[in-house]
């Protein structure tokens, strides 16, 4: 049962990662790419981590996985703000 959940969740996570990558390639301007990157990648990472957590053999591993995701979420939020402000300063749209 755990394996089935892992297969499904990790595939879903990969789907979001691919969506994020295609978005970063295809979107017209910097800010829409930044938006897509921050959202798609973190949702993909979240699904990936949930999928992997079902494979964990101890609660400590699940806690460390949640820690990685928390850090990635916070980092992405702040990073997106910084990069957007930097891009805005260089060429106001």
């Amino acid at each position, binding site marked *: 049962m755990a*394996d089935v959940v*892992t*297969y499904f969740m*990790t*595939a879903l*996570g*990969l789907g979001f*990662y*691919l969506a*994020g*990558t*295609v978005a*970063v*390639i295809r979107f017209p301007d*910097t800010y829409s*790419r*930044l938006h897509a*990157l921050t959202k798609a*990648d*973190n949702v*993909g*990472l979240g699904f*990936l*981590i949930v999928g*992997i957590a079902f*494979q*964990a*053999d101890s609660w400590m*591993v699940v806690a*460390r*996985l949640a*820690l*990685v995701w928390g*850090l*990635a979420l916070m*980092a*992405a939020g*702040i*990073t997106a*703000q*910084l*990069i*957007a*402000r*930097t*891009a805005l*300063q*260089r*060429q106001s749209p």
Partner: protein
Amino acid sequence: MTSWLISLAVLLLLSLGGALWRVWRGPEPADRMIAAQLIGTGGVGIVLLLAAATDWSMIDVALVLALLAAVAAVAFAKAQSADSVGDPEEE
């Protein structure tokens, strides 16, 4: 199960190729930084998949990689600002 995880990691690696294309083409320095962040997050995903496939202690590697990606963005913001102090509020 491990073969599934490793094949996912390979697929994720290929998707990072798309990010490399954006690094090459990106008109603005901010676009290149966006691609760098994508590679950072994708790298975290790959390392986590390999951690699940082989050895759980690799989670710390993913943690450090996520941290470094954040620090890289801060360095980019500081480098790009006018007097390199990097205070986004300044005019």
